[in-house]
C-alpha cells in the first residue's frame, strides 16, 4: 500500500509509531498529484515546497514529542474558496484571477494551528455555483473513473483529489449539496455539518444563510477528525452556534436506530441503478440492527424551489461586492456605471450572471413578497416537516443524487436539469441540518452515494451510524 492511500487514522498510528514521516507522507501525495493532476485538473495550484517544509517541521515536532494536534503532519486539500493567507484565491472565477487572501479563514487557521499540511487549492464551479465543476473559469475537473464524465460539484476538485489519493482529507463548502453530491459521484464520504457548527469567516460567500464548510474523508472516523478540527463558535461569525462541541461517539451496531425512508423522495426521476444500490444499503442497515420505516416528508419539490429563490437572492447581494473597485478585476470606463457593468459581465461566467439576474428579479419591487418572503415562509414549513419526521425516526435516508456521474456537457445547456441534481440534498440546507453522503456500491461501474440526514447538531449519531455501515457492508 502506498502511503497516500492510508486513511488519516492509519497514517496517525504509523506517524506516532515512527514507522513513517510526515515528509514521506506528503511526498507520496505530491507524487500522486504530479502523475494525475494533468489529466484530472483537481488542483488549481499545488504548494510543493511549502507543503514539504511544513511536513518537515511536523516531523521535528513529533521527534521532540510535542505535536500540535491529531492532524499534525496530515496532508490536506482546500477548496479554492477557503482563504489561506498569502495564497491566491479565485473561487473558480476570472474576476478574482489575481486575488491574494489577506487572512486565514477560521477553519484554515485552526487546521494550521493543529499542524496540518496544506497541499494546495482545488477546482470548483465559479463561486460554488454548479453541480459538475464545469462552471470553473479554469477548466472542468474530470471524473476519476471516466474522463468524459463530471465529478459533480461544486467542490469537484476536492472530491477528486481525495478519491484519487492525492491527499488524505479535503475540505469543501456545501450550500445546496456541493460537498455531498461530488462525494457521491466520486465514491468518497462527504459531510455537511449543521448550519452554525463551523465558522464561515474566510469562506467566500455564496448564500450566507445556507453555506457551510465540511470535510471529504475516506472513513467516518476521518470525517470526525476533520470536523473536530474546524468546528466551534467564532466571534468572527455571528451565526456560529453556542452548542456543545462535536465529540465522536462510536457504537457497535445499529440496534435501536430508527431510519426513515421519506416516501416523497423515492418516486420517479431516479436512475434505476441508483435506486437498487441504495436499497441494498438499506437492507445492510437493517441487518445491522436498524429499524427501517417509511416516513412522510412533504415539500421535496418545494424545497428545491425555495432554494432556487433564496440562494440567488443572497448571491445577488453577496456578489455585489465584486464591482471592480476594491479588489479583483477592474475594466475602467466612464461613466462609472460602465466600469461596474463591464467588469462584472467580463469577470463573471454565465451561471453566476444567471443567478445574479434571478436574485435581482426576485428581490425587485413588486416581486419581493411573491418570491423572497413566500420562499422564507415555505422554508418554515420545510423545517417543521423535517422536525416532525425526525421526531419519529433518528435518521432520514435517500440517495444523494438521482443519477450517477453524467457526461461533460450533458446538462450545461439547460440550467434546470442541472438544478434537479440537487433534489435530495437542498432540503437539508434549507432546514439547516447535518447530512452525509456515504459510498454504497456502484451502478454501471460508477459510484453511488447514500444520503443520511440527522437532527441538528447530532453529527456524532450520524457518523456513528455511517461507521457501523462501513464496517458491516
Amino acid at each position, binding site marked *: 500500500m502506498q502511503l497516500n492511500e492510508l486513511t488519516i487514522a492509519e497514517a496517525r498510528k504509523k506517524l506516532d509509531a515512527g514507522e513513517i514521516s510526515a515528509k514521506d507522507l506528503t511526498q507520496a501525495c505530491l507524487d500522486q498529484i504530479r502523475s494525475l493532476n494533468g489529466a484530472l485538473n483537481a488542483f488549481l495550484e499545488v504548494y510543493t515546497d511549502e507543503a514539504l517544509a511544513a511536513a518537515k517541521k511536523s516531523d521535528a515536532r513529533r521527534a521532540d514529542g510535542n505535536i500540535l494536534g491529531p492532524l499534525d503532519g496530515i496532508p490536506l486539500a482546500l477548496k479554492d474558496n477557503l482563504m489561506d493567507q498569502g495564497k491566491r484565491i479565485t473561487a473558480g472565477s476570472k474576476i478574482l484571477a489575481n486575488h491574494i487572501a489577506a487572512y486565514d479563514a477560521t477553519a484554515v487557521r485552526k487546521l494550521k494551528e493543529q499542524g496540518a499540511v496544506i497541499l494546495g487549492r482545488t477546482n470548483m464551479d465559479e463561486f460554488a455555483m454548479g453541480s459538475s465543476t464545469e462552471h470553473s473559469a479554469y477548466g472542468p475537473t474530470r471524473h476519476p473513473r471516466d474522463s468524459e464524465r463530471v465529478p459533480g460539484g461544486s467542490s469537484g476538485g476536492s472530491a477528486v483529489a481525495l478519491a484519487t489519493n492525492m491527499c488524505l482529507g479535503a475540505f469543501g463548502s456545501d450550500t445546496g449539496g456541493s460537498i455531498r453530491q461530488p462525494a457521491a459521484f466520486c465514491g468518497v464520504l462527504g459531510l455537511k455539518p449543521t448550519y452554525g457548527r463551523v465558522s464561515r469567516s474566510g469562506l467566500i460567500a455564496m448564500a450566507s444563510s445556507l453555506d457551510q464548510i465540511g470535510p471529504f474523508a475516506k472513513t467516518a472516523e476521518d470525517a470526525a477528525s476533520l470536523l473536530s478540527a474546524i468546528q466551534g463558535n467564532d466571534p468572527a461569525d455571528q451565526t456560529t452556534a453556542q452548542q456543545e462541541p462535536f465529540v465522536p461517539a462510536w457504537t457497535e451496531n445499529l440496534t435501536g436506530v430508527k431510519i426513515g425512508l421519506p416516501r416523497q423522495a423515492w418516486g420517479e426521476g431516479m436512475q434505476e441503478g441508483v435506486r437498487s444500490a441504495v436499497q441494498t444499503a438499506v437492507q445492510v442497515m437493517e441487518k445491522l440492527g436498524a429499524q427501517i420505516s417509511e416516513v412522510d416528508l412533504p415539500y421535496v419539490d418545494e424545497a428545491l424551489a425555495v432554494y432556487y429563490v433564496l440562494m440567488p437572492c443572497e448571491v445577488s447581494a453577496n456578489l455585489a461586492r465584486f464591482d471592480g473597485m476594491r479588489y479583483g478585476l477592474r475594466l475602467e470606463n*466612464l461613466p462609472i456605471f*460602465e466600469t461596474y457593468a463591464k467588469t462584472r459581465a467580463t469577470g463573471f461566467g454565465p451561471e453566476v450572471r444567471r443567478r445574479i439576474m434571478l436574485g435581482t428579479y426576485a428581490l425587485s419591487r413588486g416581486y419581493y413578497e411573491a*418570491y423572497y418572503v413566500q420562499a422564507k415562509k415555505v422554508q418554515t414549513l420545510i423545517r417543521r416537516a423535517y422536525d416532525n419526521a425526525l421526531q419519529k425516526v433518528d435518521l432520514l435516508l435517500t440517495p444523494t443524487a438521482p443519477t450517477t456521474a453524467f457526461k461533460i456537457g450533458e446538462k450545461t445547456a439547460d440550467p434546470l436539469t442541472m438544478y434537479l441534481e440537487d433534489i435530495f440534498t437542498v432540503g437539508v440546507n434549507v432546514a439547516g441540518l447535518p447530512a452525509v453522503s456515504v459510498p454504497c456500491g456502484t451502478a454501471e461501474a460508477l459510484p453511488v452515494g447514500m444520503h443520511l440526514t440527522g437532527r441538528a447538531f447530532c453529527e456524532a449519531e450520524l457518523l456513528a451510524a455511517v461507521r457501523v455501515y462501513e464496517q458491516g457492508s
Partner: protein
Amino acid sequence: MALSSEEVRQLADLARLELDENEVTAAEKDLDKILGFVDRLKKVETQGVEPASMPARTEWRQDIAQPVDELARETILANFPARSGDLLKAPGVFEKPKGK
C-alpha cells in the same frame, strides 16, 4: 410568467451586468424556465406562517477596530485594482447613471 426583453435589460442594469442582444435573449429563456419551476411556491398555503429567520445570536459583537498584521495590510493594499500610495484609486463617482 414570461419576462420581456425590456424587463431583462432593466434587470441587467439593476444587477450592473452588461449583456449583449444574444445574452438578453438567452437570459429571457433561462429565467422563464427557472421562474416556471419556482412558481410552484405560490400554490403553497402559507397563511399565518412566519418567514424563517436566521438562527443567529441576537446580541451584536462590539465593533472594535483591531490592528491587523502587516502581511494582511500589505495584501489588502496589493489587491487594490489601482492605487496611489496606500490609497485606493477609483473612477469619479459623480457621473450620471445610465438612462437618466
